[in-house]
C-alpha cells in the first residue's frame, strides 16, 4: 500500500461499513475496508426483504436500501475499499496479509484493525444429519443468494430445517416465487427467529412450523427425494415411531449462525466459548491491543440496526487507537452471565461509564426481571432466546454501587411461555 493505513476494516457488510464510517467521523485519516466479495454490503444485497433500519433510520427499509444508505455515507466520508481481496492472515501486531486478483499479495500494517467478518451458517456436516449425500441440500443463506442475486432456484419443493430468520424469510420468498414449502422443522419448542417473521413468513402462507421436530434422514441418490422428520423428546432425541416422510427436492438449513473468527484466532484474540466471538470490552477492543470487533463477528444479532451500532463503537475506538497508538482497556469489571442468561456482551466494562449490555436468555418466559448485580434491574413482559435483551446501564449507577471485579447479570423468570 502506498501510504499508511490508519484503520483497516475486515469485511464490508453492515458492520464493516458502519465501523469505517464511524472511524472516519472520529478523525481517522485513512480508513480502508478489505472485502472478499465482488461488492460491498456483505449479505445485505441478497436480503431483499424489508424490516431493516426501523431503529437506526426510523424507517422500514429493505436490505439493499439499508446497504445503499451506508455505502452513500461511506462514500461521502471518503472511506476506501478493496474488493475481491481476501485477508489470509492477521498477526498479533495487527499485521494483515491479503491477496487479490488486482492488488496481488499485500502486507498492511494499519494503526488499528476492526474485525467485521460477520457470521456463517451451520452446514449439514455440523448438524450431523444422517442419510445420503444428494444435490439439493444447502443453507438457507446460500439459497437466498441463488434466488435473489444469481437468479436461480435449487428446487420447487422444499423442507426447511431450523426456524432461524433466514429460513423463515426464505420460506416466504420461495413460496412467493411459486415453489412449495412443505414445512419448517424446528427442534426446539420455540421458533428460532423473530415473531414477526413467524407470522408474516409462515402463518401468512399457511406453511406448517413443526416445533420439537427434526430431520432424521435425507433420502435420494442424485437429488433429494424427501426427508424423514420425527418428533423429538425433552433431550431432543427422535421419538421412535413418530417419523414420517416428507417429499421434497430441496432441504434448506437454517439452524444456527456461527461468528466467523478464524482470523481472530490467528491473531490470538481470546474467544468467548458461548458467543463464539471475541471477548470484548466496552470499547469493543479485543484481547489483542489495537484489534477491535463489532457486529455478528462478536455475537449473532437479530437486528441489523444493532450490528451497525456495535460496529460504530468499534470503529470509533479503532480511530482513537490509531490516533494515539493506544487505547486504555475498559476492563475494570468483568460482566458474568448468571441465572437464565446465556451470555452478556461486552464481557468487560469500565464500571464508570454508561454502557449498553446485550444479552440472550436461555429460555423463554413471561414477566421477567433482569438484574444487573445490585446496580439496577428492569422488568420485561416477555423474554425469548431468539430476541436479544438490551439494557442501558448508567455510569453513575455503577459508580454509586461501587462495582468492582465482577458483575453478575441474572434473569428471574416467573412464568413459562
Amino acid at each position, binding site marked *: 500500500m502506498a501510504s499508511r493505513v490508519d484503520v483497516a476494516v475486515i469485511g464490508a457488510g453492515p458492520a464493516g461499513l458502519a465501523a469505517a464510517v464511524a472511524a472516519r467521523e472520529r478523525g481517522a485519516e485513512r480508513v480502508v475496508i478489505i472485502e472478499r466479495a465482488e461488492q460491498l454490503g456483505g449479505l445485505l*444485497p441478497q436480503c431483499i426483504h*424489508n424490516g431493516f433500519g426501523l431503529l437506526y433510520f426510523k424507517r422500514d427499509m429493505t436490505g439493499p436500501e439499508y446497504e445503499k444508505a451506508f455505502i452513500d455515507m461511506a*462514500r461521502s466520508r471518503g472511506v476506501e475499499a478493496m474488493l475481491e481481496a481476501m485477508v489470509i492472515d492477521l498477526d498479533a501486531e495487527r499485521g494483515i496479509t491479503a491477496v487479490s486478483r488486482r492488488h496481488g499479495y499485500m502486507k498492511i500494517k494499519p494503526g488499528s484493525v476492526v474485525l467485521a467478518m460477520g457470521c456463517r451458517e451451520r452446514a449439514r456436516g455440523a448438524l450431523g444429519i444422517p442419510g445420503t449425500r444428494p444435490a439439493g441440500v444447502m443453507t438457507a443463506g446460500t439459497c437466498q443468494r441463488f434466488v*435473489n442475486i444469481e437468479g436461480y432456484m435449487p428446487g420447487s419443493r422444499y423442507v426447511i430445517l431450523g426456524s432461524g430468520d433466514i429460513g423463515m424469510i426464505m420460506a416466504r420468498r420461495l413460496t412467493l416465487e411459486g415453489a412449495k414449502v412443505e414445512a419448517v422443522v424446528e427442534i426446539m419448542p420455540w421458533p428460532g427467529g*423473530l*415473531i414477526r417473521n413467524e407470522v408474516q413468513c409462515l402463518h401468512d402462507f399457511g406453511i406448517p412450523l413443526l416445533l420439537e421436530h427434526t430431520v432424521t434422514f435425507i433420502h435420494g441418490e442424485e437429488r433429494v427425494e424427501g426427508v424423514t422428520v420425527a418428533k423429538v423428546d425433552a433431550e431432543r432425541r427422535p421419538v421412535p415411531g413418530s417419523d414420517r416422510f416428507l417429499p421434497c427436492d430441496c432441504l434448506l438449513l437454517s439452524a444456527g449462525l456461527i461468528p466467523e473468527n478464524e482470523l481472530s484466532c490467528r491473531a490470538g484474540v481470546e474467544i468467548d466459548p458461548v458467543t463464539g466471538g471475541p471477548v470484548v470490552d466496552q470499547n469493543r477492543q479485543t484481547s489483542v491491543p489495537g484489534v477491535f470487533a463489532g457486529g455478528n463477528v462478536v455475537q449473532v444479532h437479530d437486528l441489523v440496526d444493532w450490528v451497525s451500532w456495535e460496529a460504530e463503537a468499534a470503529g470509533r475506538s479503532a480511530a482513537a487507537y490509531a490516533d494515539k497508538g493506544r487505547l486504555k482497556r475498559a476492563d475494570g469489571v468483568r460482566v458474568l452471565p448468571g441465572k437464565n442468561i446465556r451470555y452478556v456482551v461486552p464481557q468487560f466494562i469500565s464500571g464508570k461509564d454508561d454502557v449498553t449490555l446485550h444479552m440472550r436468555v436461555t429460555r423463554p418466559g413471561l414477566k421477567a426481571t433482569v438484574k444487573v448485580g445490585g446496580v439496577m434491574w428492569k422488568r420485561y413482559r416477555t423474554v425469548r432466546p431468539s430476541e436479544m435483551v438490551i439494557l442501558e446501564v448508567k455510569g453513575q449507577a455503577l459508580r454509586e454501587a461501587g462495582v468492582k471485579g465482577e458483575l453478575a447479570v441474572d434473569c428471574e423468570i416467573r412464568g413459562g411461555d
Partner: protein
Amino acid sequence: MSPRETVICIGCPLGCRVTAVTDRKGTVTALKGAECKQGQKHVLEELRNPVRTLTATVRTGDESFPLLPVRTSRPVLKVMLRPIMRETAKVKVKPPVKAGDIVIANVLKTGADLVATADWPAPGEGV
C-alpha cells in the same frame, strides 16, 4: 371470517395471541389476550384489512446482474401478494435504474407502485 380467530400481534416482541370474537355480520365484538391498546388496534386492522409490504425482484436481462430488487411503495392487501408476484415475472427493466424509481406504477390498481430498491448499474466499485 370464522366466529373466533386468533392473531399473533406483531406490534412488539411480546407477540400476544389475540383471539377475536365476531358476530354473524363479521363485526368484532370482543378481543381477548392483547396486552395493550396499541396491540388491539393492530389486531383489529389485521382482521379487517390485512396488508403487507411485498418485496421481490424483476428481471434485467443482464447476466452479471440478472435481478433488480423491488418493493411496493406501501403495504398492499395480503390477497394481492401473489397476483403482484405474477406481474413481477412479466416485466424486464432497462438500465439505468435508481433506487426509488418506479418499475410498475399503481400495480394491479392497488394504489402502490412497485419501486426499485437498488441502483443498476451499481455505482462504481469501491467507495
